[in-house]
């Protein structure tokens, strides 16, 4: 469960349900697109802008034609729904992701490690 290296992306994720999608990396599920095509595959990455990367995808286009795609990247703008697998505990997933973000932010304690909010010392 890789947390973004970008402070901005972490902040965005922390404040939206994208954080839930980031918690289901590795699950196989269906993404419904805005143009009514669907992509069924394994989620390999979701970024703060809800761009979704899927692997081993069965893609059904809006005409109903089915094809296999090895790797698919959908822009967040074009995502309509992401089906959350039944076995996923949504609340627990969100909490776990938040914890991971906080771990990164406060790594090594307040005064050591990566500084999220730098002080004069790190000018």
């Amino acid at each position, binding site marked *: 469960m890789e947390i973004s290296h970008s*402070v*901005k992306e972490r*902040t*965005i994720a922390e*404040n*939206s349900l*994208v954080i839930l999608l980031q918690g289901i990396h590795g699950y196989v599920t269906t993404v419904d*697109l*805005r*143009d*009514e095509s669907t992509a069924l595959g394994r989620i390999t990455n979701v*970024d703060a*802008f809800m*761009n979704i*990367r899927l692997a081993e*995808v069965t*893609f059904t286009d*809006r*005409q*109903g*034609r089915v*094809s*296999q*795609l*090895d*790797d*698919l*990247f*959908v*822009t*967040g*703008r*074009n995502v309509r729904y992401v089906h959350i697998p039944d076995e996923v505990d949504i609340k627990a997933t969100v909490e776990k992701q*938040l*914890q991971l973000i*906080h*771990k990164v932010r*406060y790594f090594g*304690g*307040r*005064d050591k490690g990566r500084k*999220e*909010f*730098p*002080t*004069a*010392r790190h*000018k």
Partner: protein
Amino acid sequence: MSFLKRFPPPAEGIRQQQPDTEAVLGGRGLGTGTLYIAESRLSWLDKSGLGFSLDYPTISLHAVSRDLNAYPWEHLYVMVNAKFEEEETKETPMAEGEEEEDSDDDDIEPIAEFRFVPSDKSALEAMFSAMCECQALHPDPDDEDSDNDYEGEEYDVEAHEQGQGDIPSFYTYEEGLSHLTAEGQATLERLEGMLAQSVSSQYNMAGVRTEDSVREFEDGMEVDTTPVVAGQFEDAEVDH
């Protein structure tokens, strides 16, 4: 194909350049040329210098297709949210004989399907990744749903981050003190007092400066990590 134009290839920010790549729009081949996956846009130019560019915000999705049943060659598939001129062939959605279930959609949502077929199949993953990276550089400006403004004290972290670029917006304790007006000084004292009082009495929050710890650390100006209003982050998980 009147949408093909002559232009120089991108000069900078090229993440992947793939020569000997055929471009196909819908059902029609456009010839063989070089695909430039640059940070600013996706460009393809044939040997005579004619080609086209696609802006990342118009690209809905892209994928690596190795399904030879769907298309006879392994390729990079790119779906674009725009209309491009193309001759009608059997494969285009508007061809006769095919059911047009989504004919209304075609008006609202123009779709163009590009395929880039490199002669070097092994380059497909790199091409795909390069495109993912470039797409990430172009977040949707029309995104109304997600509130990225983050107004309010709690989210002032954004303002701090933006301020941290080239312009030093932080002072050392001594420097800062000398820049304070009388009012600023009074505010500082009040805040530090409030902080020391409320926080040390509640519970020991990791790393929070109290009267005692201030002597250990030089800069007492680190107000951006501590709540201005005591108890603001009460519900935050501090004990990891």
